């Protein structure tokens, strides 16, 4: 294996900061990670997003060194670390459970990594103080983990992982154990801290909101493979597959068949909507291709009166109304029985809201839907 790695070491100098090169991990006959290749740039916050069992945690553990790839190689800052044990890697991890040492104080926990590197007690203490100040935990040095709240423990774990200034910080569901209010605050603090220290972050999460707010780029994983890599906007607005469209955010998916495909527009016949969906760009696909139209609920508008536009207009009954404060979610049942989800922002306080059992028109722009393979 080592032999093979020295051979595959790329000669060009433009090597990305972290390179995952055709990595596969098998546990027995189960393939947890399947031929994944991924480049991560220095100073990025990269998010691996996927449902449970998609292989994201295994990939993270291979970056940390807890698992060795069955095939492929991992380079960090140009160095092949594929078989380097975790205690020799310039990588630190913030564990999902935080994994704070219960028998040590906060200061001892944070100093642990420094002490392993032979940093003197007094120097370590200075660095610990500085780090604890950065995560707003001054004065907690002599507390034990069990005397801290969940949010405070999360900060200790972060401080412990960052104090050695690793080349790469791995975060396993970093906000998973915090309540909603705290998560929102911590999200921004985490990003600020990352910008301040310039450490490259790789975050694993199943929570798309966490991924969207934290990441500069994210990779969506399923069944051991990376389906799409891109900025949060790319992934949300231009999903490349039915799975990605469905996984990120809410979406209405309508199966259809391509009937017209010109460079400036295309038409897709959707049985479920009872109309030809008009899309104002071509998809350069095979004629009569079977495709899926993905339409985000917030991109659909509702009106009691018939809208001016002729295309992309359907009529139905309001069957469900869920008031969420900032927005309202409607369930519209078309006359042929198809259910359509629509989300409308509550901009005007005194709006006369649509109510259940009202007859409405639902309509959208020609650039709103995304066409993905079935």
């Amino acid at each position: 294996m080592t032999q093979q790695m020295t051979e595959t070491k790329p000669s060009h100098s433009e090597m990305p900061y972290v390179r995952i090169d055709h990595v596969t991990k098998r546990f027995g006959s189960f393939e947890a990670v399947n031929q994944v290749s991924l480049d991560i740039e220095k100073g990025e916050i990269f998010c691996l997003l996927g449902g449970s069992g998609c292989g994201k945690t295994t990939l993270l553990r291979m970056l940390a060194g807890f698992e060795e790839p069955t095939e492929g190689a991992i380079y960090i800052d140009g160095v092949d670390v594929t078989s380097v044990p975790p205690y020799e890697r310039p990588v630190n991890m913030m564990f999902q459970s935080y994994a704070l040492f219960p028998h040590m104080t906060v200061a001892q926990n944070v100093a642990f990594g420094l002490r392993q590197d032979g940093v003197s007690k007094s120097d370590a203490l200075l660095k610990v103080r500085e780090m604890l100040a950065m995560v707003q935990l001054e004065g907690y040095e002599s507390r034990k983990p069990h005397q801290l709240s969940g949010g405070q423990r999360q900060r200790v774990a972060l401080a412990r992982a960052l104090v050695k200034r690793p080349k790469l910080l791995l975060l396993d569901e970093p906000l998973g154990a915090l309540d909603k209010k705290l998560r929102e605050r911590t999200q921004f603090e985490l990003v600020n801290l990352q910008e301040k220290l310039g450490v490259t972050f790789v975050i694993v999460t199943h929570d798309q909101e966490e991924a969207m707010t934290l990441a500069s780029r994210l990779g969506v994983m399923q069944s051991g493979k990376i389906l799409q890599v891109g900025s949060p906007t790319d992934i949300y607005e231009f999903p490349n597959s039915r799975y990605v469209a469905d996984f990120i955010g809410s979406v209405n998916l309508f199966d259809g068949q391509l009937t017209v495909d010109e460079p400036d527009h295309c038409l897709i016949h959707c049985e479920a909507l009872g109309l030809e969906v008009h899309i104002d760009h071509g998809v350069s696909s095979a004629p009569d291709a079977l495709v899926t139209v993905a339409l985000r609920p917030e991109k659909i508008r509702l009106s009691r009166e018939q809208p001016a536009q002729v295309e992309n207009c359907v009529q139905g009954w309001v069957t469900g109304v869920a008031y969420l404060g900032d927005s309202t979610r409607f369930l519209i049942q078309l006359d042929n029985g198809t259910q359509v989800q629509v989300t409308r922002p509550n901009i005007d306080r005194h709006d006369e809201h649509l109510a259940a059992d009202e007859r409405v028109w639902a309509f959208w722009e020609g650039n709103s839907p995304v066409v993905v393979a079935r």
Partner: protein
Amino acid sequence: MWNAIQAIRRRLTTQVGRKAVIGIPYGWLLIFFLVPFLIVLKISFSNVVLAMPPVEPILTWGRDQVLQIRVNLSNYTFVFGDRLYVAAFVNSLRVAAVSTLLALLIGYPMAYGIARAQGAWRNILFLLVSLPFFTSFLLRVYAWIGLLGRGGPVNAILMHLGLIQEPIQLLQTDFAVYLGMVYSYLPFMVLPLYSAIEKLDLTLLEAAADLGCRPSKAFFAVTLPLTREGILAGCLLVFIPAVGEYVIPALLGGPDTLMIGRVVWDEFFANRDWPVASALAIVLLLILSVFVLLLQKVQAGEEEPS
């Protein structure tokens, strides 16, 4: 309404249940431990007489309906004044301490291996540790007499390997006593260690490795301190019975293996001096109590650092 009744009922049953759960074993201990202890304590303040039982009663009714209580402390002064008894105590503590240490050194890797073994293997190994309990303790100690004897298999193997020319004296030595002690009490060391190691969160070891700690160092920095309670429990479970052990030194030890269990036996049955034997038993109990209290204090002190 119904919910309120339910809540009250639940509360009552949990309260009653809780008291019963705690109360029954405590009642058992009270009757079968505290009462005999008090009887022994009473005898230790008494005098020897030629009667059955061979002790003078402490409480007697005098002629004029006067209750006489005679507390005789001479047994205790005798016990502390006699070199033999002091030596027996010291020797017992030493043998028990060495046996405990040996059991810990052997038991920790065993417990670690069992706790880290895969599913089915773990059960098998666990069963093997408790297998000796299926046979009588006495029989197992007797078996060692056969194994260690001059014509026994241990000598035979050593001679076959050419390590010794003729059979050596294994029985009735301190070696045999330590062997018997460690052999007999090892399961009591392994079981609490196992449950402590098994509870240890493996992510903590990953965290240690992640922070640059080699596995060998992580054992001392993380595993050992976090399994301390199991170590203390195991050591107490071995040390306490080992101090007062009678059967093993009697069967495997030599005539000069002086241990307090044998001395107490001799006082009771050979000398029929129940008061001195009782005083010895009380002193032993006090010594062990001091150990337990010290350990508890150490434990409590570590738990709540100021």
